[in-house]
């Protein structure tokens, strides 16, 4: 079922459906290669980039920088694509990136109800749950219930703001800097920034959790 979004490959009775998908994919790649449309090595390179280069560490660096550098934070909230583009270590950021700040009053959470829009260049590939029906259906209607599934409870009067990514704008949540991190370096703070805290389905780690 789609609520796990692993589909028939994981629900199968005898294993034949798994091989069916594998065979279809292999056949398609063979056809595209034989027709001269794609080089398999180019496909390998795309996969390797997503497995090794692109991931939430990119976003975490941006968040830690914003926590320690007020001028950068201001620039980030004004134009995130531009601000991130000035950082050498996160190159090739896409356009239309918007950073939204969590505070004690407002908690931001990001969803794509229509498909799977997600800031790939900041966070890597979206996790299965982000692309699956339970999250896509409930985030805009019952975000507190969704947060409970992640073990997160917010005060009742904290306003929850859900951003539905229905266009090519992409949203990065700037989580609240945890208490007890005064004087921490950017390098140390990076370790507290989780992927989910930048989607808004989690909070940054506390110094105790990170230890």
């Amino acid at each position, binding site marked *: 079922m789609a609520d796990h979004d692993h589909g028939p490959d994981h629900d199968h009775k005898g294993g034949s459906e798994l091989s069916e998908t*594998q065979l279809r994919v292999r056949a398609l790649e063979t056809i595209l290669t034989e027709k001269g449309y794609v080089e398999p090595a180019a496909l390998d390179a795309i996969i390797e980039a997503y497995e090794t280069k692109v991931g939430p560490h990119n976003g975490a660096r941006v968040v830690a920088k914003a926590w320690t550098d007020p001028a950068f934070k201001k620039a980030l909230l004004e134009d995130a694509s531009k601000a991130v583009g000035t950082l050498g270590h996160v190159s090739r950021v896409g356009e239309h990136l918007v950073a939204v700040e969590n505070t004690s009053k407002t908690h931001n959470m990001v969803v794509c*109800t229509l498909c799977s829009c997600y800031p790939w260049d900041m966070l890597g590939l979206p996790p*299965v749950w982000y692309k699956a029906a339970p999250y896509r259906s409930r985030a805009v209607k019952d975000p507190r219930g969704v947060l409970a599934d992640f073990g997160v409870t917010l005060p009742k009067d904290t306003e929850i703001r859900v951003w539905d990514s229905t266009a090519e704008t992409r949203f990065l949540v700037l989580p609240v800097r945890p208490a007890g991190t005064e004087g921490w370096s950017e390098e140390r703070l990076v370790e507290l920034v989780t992927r989910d805290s930048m989607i808004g389905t989690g909070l940054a780690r506390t110094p105790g959790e990170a230890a």
Partner: protein
Amino acid sequence: MDGVHDMGGMDGFGRVEPEPNELAFHEVWEGRVMAMTRAMGAISTWPIDMQRFSREQLPPHIYLATSYYQRWLLGMRQMLLGRGLIDADELAAGHALRPGAPLERGPFTVADVPRVMTRGSFGRPASAPARFKVGDRVRARNIHPRTHTRLPRYARGHAGVVERVQGCHVFPDTVATGQGEQPQWLYTVVFESRELWGPDADPALKVSIEAFEPYLDPA
């Protein structure tokens, strides 16, 4: 289209299941499908909204019973068949039976990889000034196009406030059906929860969508 992909607000799908230390791909074939989609999108001018529309058109029972990358696979096969880039007998045979169609931007090689690792810009010059400004009250139109749209059902007919003007962007509704980019102003429109979900909704919730100008009327 009023498809099953438009899930915002639906009930009954159960709990969200976070997966600790999730891998980029759970099966090797998932990576191949993602990479092939990227590659073929880059060389065959298959805009992202055409890709989305191809998946939205999967029958609801198929859409719900398949995994994310299975939907990508099915959508890509339909696109390739529809454009005559491959043929059904080749899919059945598992290899090419005739030479490839000429592609202006093909083949996709290792040198092309950096290009697909960066998202392109969707911003375009505006042909007219923006109709709305920050703070304007707007109502999402009650429209039900049979083709691709990015106006989710749960927002249609409801009133909200323009919070940001995001520039003028490629219009998904036309680009998905081959009618060109027809750039439109894009706005962040924020709705009160009770406007969307009725009097029992959590009063401390606000939801925003990214709405193209043709989706909106003054309210």
